[in-house]
C-alpha cells in the first residue's frame, strides 16, 4: 500500500493539490492512505522548500506546483521500492 502525503500550510494551492490527488487515486482505484501534512517541522524535514508538495512513500515527487490528476496518475503508476 502506498502512503501519500500532501505537504503544505493549508493555502488554496495545497487544497487544490489534495483534491487532484484524491481524484487520481479514485480514478486508478488504488488502495492507499492519503494525508495532509501541515506541520512546518515535518515539511522542512522532507527537504521541501516550496509548497504544496506531493510525497509518495517518503519520496518527494513534486513541489511548488499544483499538478493535474493526470500527472499524479503517472506518478502513482510508478513502481514502489519497498
Amino acid at each position, binding site marked *: 500500500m502506498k502512503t501519500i502525503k500532501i505537504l503544505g*500550510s493549508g*493555502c488554496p*494551492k495545497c487544497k487544490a493539490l489534495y483534491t487532484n490527488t484524491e481524484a487520481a487515486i479514485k480514478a486508478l482505484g488504488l488502495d492507499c492512505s492519503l494525508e495532509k501534512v501541515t506541520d512546518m517541522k515535518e515539511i*522542512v524535514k522532507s527537504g*521541501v*522548500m516550496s*509548497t504544496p508538495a506531493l510525497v509518495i512513500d517518503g519520496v518527494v*515527487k513534486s513541489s*511548488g506546483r499544483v499538478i493535474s490528476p493526470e500527472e499524479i496518475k503517472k506518478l502513482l503508476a510508478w513502481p514502489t521500492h519497498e
Partner: protein
Amino acid sequence: MESNQLKRQILWLISASVLWVVAYICLEPLSRWAAFELLGLAEGSHLGEAVAFFLLDVPKVMLLLVIVVFGVGIVRTFFTPERTRRFLVGRRELTGNIFAALLGVVTPFCSCSAVPLFIGFVTAGVPLGVTFSFLVAAPMVNEVAVVLLFGLFGWKVTLLYISTGLFIALVSGWIIGRLKLEKWVEKWVYENQASTTNEDDPTWPERIDAGVLAVREIVGKVWLYVILGIAVGAGIHGYVPEGWMASVMGRGAWWSVPAAVVIGVPLYSNAAGIIPIVQALLGKGAALGTALAFMMAVIGISLPEAVILRRVLRPQLLAVFFGIVAVGIIAVGYFFNLVFG
C-alpha cells in the same frame, strides 16, 4: 511518445506566436477604429480618448502578460529553490547578496512557502543576510509588475524599477547580514536539519506545460485587476485636470514620499491594479520618485508575508527587516525626485 508531444507543442506554439504578432500589430488601429467608428465617439473628446486608451491598453497588457508569464514559467523550471540554495550556500557577503537578489527574480517563489524556504536556506548554510536579499527581491521584481511597467511606462521606467528593486534587496540583505541578527531568528528554526529532495529534471514537454500552467494561474488571477486598474487610469487620463496631483504627489511636497510608502504597504499584491493608476497620476503632476516609491511599497512589502514570517523571525528582526526595506524605498523615491527634477 515524448518527441511526438514536443512536436505537437512546437506546432501549437508557432501558430500561437503568429496569432500573437498579428494581434499586437493590429492593436492600435483596431482600438481607434472601435472607439471612433464603431462606438462613434468624437476624436479628441474626453470620453473618446479615455475609451480609446482603455481599448488599446487592456489587450496590449494582456498580450504582453501572456507571453512574458509563459516565458518566465519555462525559465523557472530551470531555477528550482533547491538549485538556488545549493548555489548560495556559503557565499560570502556582498557577492552572495548580489546573486541572491538576482536569483530571487527567477526562482519560483510564493509567499505561502516563505517559511519552509527560509528554514531550508538558513539551515543549509545560506547566510541570513543573503537569505533576506532573496526574500526582498522575489516579490518586488516579479513578472506581472514588470509587464505592467513595460506596457504602460516604457522600458526606461521598467529598467529603473528593476535595478532599484534589486539594489534595495542587495543593500538591505547586506545590512541585516552585517548587523548579525541571527539571535533574533526563532530558536526552533535551527533545530531543523537541512535535507534535500531528488526531484527528476522536467522534460521539455513538461517545461512547456509549466509555462502554460503559469499563464493560466497568473493571468487567471490578475486579469480583472488589469481591467479595473486601466479603467480607472483611463478615467484619470480623460477627466482629471493637468497638475492636479502636483500638490499631493509632486516634488514640492517633501512628505509625499514617506506618505506614499505608508499608504502603499497595506495595498499589497495588487500590482496589476495599482500600476495603471499610478501611470495615470504621473501624467497629472505626480513626481516619478514618489510614484516609484509608492509602487515598490505596494508590490514589495506585504503584510501577509510579515505575518507568515513571524513564525520564524522574532518581532525585532521582523521590524528591522521591514524598516530597512521601507527606508530603502523612501531613499529611492527622494533620489529619483532629485535626479529627474
